[in-house]
């Protein structure tokens, strides 16, 4: 077994910070009733928890893809006298890459359709008589284990059945675990129930947290993983792209890019938008003027120009300092970071405007006026009375932005100022697929793969956010 060393990219570090912050918040919220109550409400909703489970799988994948290592490599130096230096490969791999090694390494020459065993395009070779002939060559890896007489459908079916078996096993195990350890605490007043009755409670769906739904929804990603394990090494489940890379691998790798753009950008937006928005709407006068000046100036510049300029200046910097960006992943990571930052700078103004307008409205309400005349400090009014009333707008905008940002990435790639072209992202895939749609016969799998994954992520995020909104909106809570 070879040794390895960790490599922490800047975006990785930011993601770790974000995750840590969320964990700290959870721990803190658990101790404070008024913070945890709305979240408990979410916990008991079926739809919310289903989408949460899906989101969780995306986040875990993205997180696994954010732990990077460099493996040690063996060298045979000819001069034995020299001391052996430990060398690490300049190829940076994530844990996810290691898990999906088979998918990553098994590349074909060019396009092949999902589950295909033959190449998508014809090739010319010489037959026995030395005459050239056209044929669809067998793939190097896709279905390579199949003998000529084997049925592909039968083989796939067999493997899928195995995947189903593993899924059932995992789910049954989970049900048992839930019944044994979780259910008793909340749902049964009677301490002395046996496992059998607990199981019945879980399976009947009568728990306050919808465990049955959660487990049923969970079976989908579990089945997906199981089939990946069963089929992945033997077939290209979603086909291969123009240079023969596995499309499914690319799509899974793109999850990290999408998540980072969606989350890190909002991370940058929020403090600016909230502080500036509330202050402007609340104080008005010269503060309002100044803040309006800043955001009007920023938002009146066409965003494409701003992004293009930022990305181009980054490239200038990278050209002038090539020693800091020796590997491909360093370059693409810096570009991603820059993109996230510039997207943040660009899009905080929209939320800021909304908050300012809403603050202007709330400010006129009686109880704020009352608090004002009672001499409550401004900071307290803003944080206690105005900010909670704006929370729903913030959350809705954030979620809308999340999907919007993931989608905007595709447009930016089209213009040529998106993430690094060597980076796997749905935007790059969709943009590449643009050309494939003109092919005849159609190369549909690249677009479909990106579309399906993107769609599921955004859908889950939106449903979850709806629940969050219902739970957090002070006015809806009253009702």
């Amino acid at each position, binding site marked *: 077994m070879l040794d390895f060393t960790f490599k922490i990219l800047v975006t990785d570090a930011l993601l770790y910070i974000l995750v840590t912050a969320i964990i700290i918040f959870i721990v803190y919220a658990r101790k404070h009733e008024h913070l945890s109550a709305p979240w408990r409400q979410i916990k008991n909703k079926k739809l919310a928890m289903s989408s949460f489970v899906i989101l969780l799988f995306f986040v875990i994948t993205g997180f696994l893809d954010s732990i990077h290592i460099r493996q040690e490599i063996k060298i045979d130096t000819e001069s034995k006298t020299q001391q052996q230096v430990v060398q690490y490969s*300049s190829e940076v791999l994530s844990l996810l890459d290691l898990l999906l090694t088979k998918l990553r390494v098994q590349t074909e020459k060019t396009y092949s359709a999902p589950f295909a065993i033959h190449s998508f395009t014809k090739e010319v070779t010489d037959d026995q008589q030395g005459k050239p002939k056209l044929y669809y060559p067998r793939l190097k890896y896709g279905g390579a284990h199949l003998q000529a007489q084997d049925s592909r459908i039968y083989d796939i079916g067999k493997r899928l059945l195995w995947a189903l078996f593993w899924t059932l096993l995992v789910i049954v195990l989970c049900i048992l675990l839930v019944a044994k350890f979780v259910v008793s605490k909340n749902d049964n007043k009677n301490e002395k129930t046996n496992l059998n009755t607990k199981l019945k409670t879980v399976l009947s769906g009568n728990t306050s947290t919808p465990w049955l739904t959660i487990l049923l929804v969970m079976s989908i990603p579990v089945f997906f993983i199981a089939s990946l394990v069963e089929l992945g090494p033997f077939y290209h489940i979603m086909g291969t*792209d123009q240079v023969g890379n596995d499309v499914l691998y690319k799509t899974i790798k793109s999850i990290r890019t999408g998540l980072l753009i969606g989350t890190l950008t909002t991370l940058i937006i929020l403090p600016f938008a909230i502080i500036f928005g509330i202050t402007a709407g609340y104080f008005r006068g010269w503060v309002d003027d100044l803040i309006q000046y800043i955001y009007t100036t920023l938002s009146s510049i066409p965003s494409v120009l701003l992004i293009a300029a930022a990305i181009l200046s980054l490239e200038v910097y990278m*050209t002038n300092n090539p020693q800091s960006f020796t590997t491909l992943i360093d370059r693409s990571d810096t570009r991603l970071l820059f993109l996230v930052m510039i997207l943040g700078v660009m899009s905080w103004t929209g939320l800021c405007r909304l908050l300012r307008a809403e603050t202007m409205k709330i400010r006129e309400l009686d109880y704020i006026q009352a608090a004002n005349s009672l001499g409550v400090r401004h900071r307290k009014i803003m944080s206690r009375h105005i900010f909670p009333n704006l929370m729903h707008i913030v959350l809705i905008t954030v979620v809308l932005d999340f999907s919007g940002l993931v989608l905007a990435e595709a447009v930016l790639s089209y213009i040529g100022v998106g993430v690094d*072209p*060597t980076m796997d992202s749905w935007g790059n895939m969709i943009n590449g697929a643009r*050309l494939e749609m003109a092919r005849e016969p159609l190369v549909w799998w690249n677009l479909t793969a990106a579309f399906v994954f993107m769609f599921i992520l955004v859908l889950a995020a939106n449903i979850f956010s709806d629940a969050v909104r219902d739970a957090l909106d002070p006015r809806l809570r009253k009702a």
Partner: protein
Amino acid sequence: MYFYKVLIVSILTGLTSVVQAQWNNPYPAASAGKNIMYSFFRERPKTLDPARSYSSNEYIFVAQIYEPPFQYSYLKRPYELEPLTAVSVPTPVYLDKKNRRLPANADKEKIAYSVYRVRLKKGIQYQPHPAFAEKDDGTLYYDGVDKNALDKIDDIAGFKKQGSRELIASDYIYQIKRLANPSLQSPIYGLMSQYIVGLKDLRTRLLDAKKTTGNPDLEKFSLSGVKLIDRYTYEIKIKGKYPQFIFWMAMPFFSPMPPEADRFFSQPGMKDKNLTLDWYAVGTGAYMLTVNDPNRKMVLARNPNYHEETYPAQGEKNDQQAGLLKDAGKLLPFIDRIEFSLEKEGIPNWNKFMQGYYDQSGISAEAFDQAVQFTRGGDTEITNEMKERGIKLSTSVATSVYYFGFNMLDPVVGGSSERARKLRQAISIAIDFEEFISIFRNGRGLAAQSPIPPGIFGASDGKKGLNDYIYDWVDGKKKRKNILAAKKLLAEAGYPEGFDRKNGQKLLLHYDTSGTSPEEKSRLDWIRKQFKKLNIELVIRNTDYNRFQEKMRKGTAQMYMWGWNADYPDPENFLFLLYGPNKKVGLNGENASNYDNPAFNRLFEKMKDMENGPERLSLINSMLEIVRRDAPWSWGFFPKDFSLQHAWVKNRKSNLMANNTLKYLRLDPELREIKREKWNKPVAWPLLIFILLLIASIIPAVIAYRKHERQAAL
């Protein structure tokens, strides 16, 4: 009563026309069936001024309008010049230092000057243009046009009076002077000033004049190297012997420019209306520019004053059979109007071609499988689907080269050491351009054996033209050497298995590029894969185009890909890409690899001015041997041009040197109308279904509303 009749009839005819019409026809219905060719342009041309224009997307227009004295023969191969406005293609007269005439076979060292005398055909007229319009007294109508009058005019069509005049030799001289005009920044001034006698001097005088008087009047300046002999004859004197000069004279740079036009457009107020020579061309060519809206559409219309020119009667041996000689002797041009629409995206472009709304098209990689298939002979032919549509394919190897280059100034891959040479050779074997061509160009290309593409003098095919540092000759075919051979070379270079023998470090190389498109991404992936075969780590340094150019100029790039489009069909125009004194770094030349081998340079200087013949061939062969061994390029490939035409386009033959080919084409508009009708029947039923669905979805909503109201009432 009558009124109703008319109404009913008109409604009925309206309905039937709606049903029959091509809903997706991008052109007005009125132009159906007319002798109009439909084409497209990708980006807006920067200038149509023949002294400045130097790119193929501008030549589409420029070459149809302006006529240099010579043109490339449309049908004959190898490419050959023929007179256009001139009476004949002149052979140069050689002079020594004292301007004494030398025999044609004189020694190169003795030749101090060459003189080209061009005689023009008489009676050639310019296109109708307001610049030539005359008043009754013979003075120019629009000379000193009133500023107020100009206010009402938006484009050239706003000038109602038009005129024409005969083409004379001084128009050509005027244009040559324009090449030296500092405000025009002609791209070939630098090169031409080395050859045309007195051009540099003219430039200095013009620069001085510009400082004092603004825009100088070129007619008042003399150019010592160009002489007007009589009304129809002029002479150009160049330094030394430069046989390729005649090719330059066939380019739009050397077309005539009437001084009236220049004066017309330089009047005050014209520039504010975008009325300049950059946008409005005045020529003698077969076509003239009538609509110039670079934002949307450009239209070329037949020049009513076009001089007598007939379709060629001689061509290659297959031309007769291909029906290319049917129109021999008929007057040119055949087509009345050519409409170019701005079309940036490849997909709509291809679809419009397939629908019959463009008459010709290139083939993008995506559409390739649909259009072209390989025959049993390994050759290409059109697919059955295309055949049924009557679409024809024409192919030709372009006179250009795309190469993967090494920067010879780089400490790792550059230099003339044995180590670096072997490293380069190893990489050249590893980069499998045959695969590149088949993946990214659908086989539309030839892996290069040398810098000279086939069809150009000096290129040999078969075993003779084989680059035996990279290929083996096996069973009468070339075969790329095995990767093991590359690995062996790599080990000999001191990098066994990709590790530096000296320090045990893994070999890390850099590829510089400016591509950011998704297509580029797969290309980059592919190149990394090639280096992985040798266990070499390849780092891609991706920057924007300017930064990439800057790296190339400063020589800080390591490996790169670059292309060259020939100016003229001569090996000199390719081999000079490796000529030392033509280096990019410091000298701003086109030798992007900065390759500088004294032996090669010596041979190049000798070869450059020679006439084609066995002696030149043997010189070229020894030059090729030198560069193949040194491998400053990993050779790359020569692209093949594939283009498609519909059945109604006649007389089409690929000609990569000639740009003024539109005048030879003929259309069959009736056939086009029939086919368009057939291919574009609108499918309307989905619309109806959609509307029905919409109505159906409203009903449950209404029911739900009723229910809701009733419940609320309770």
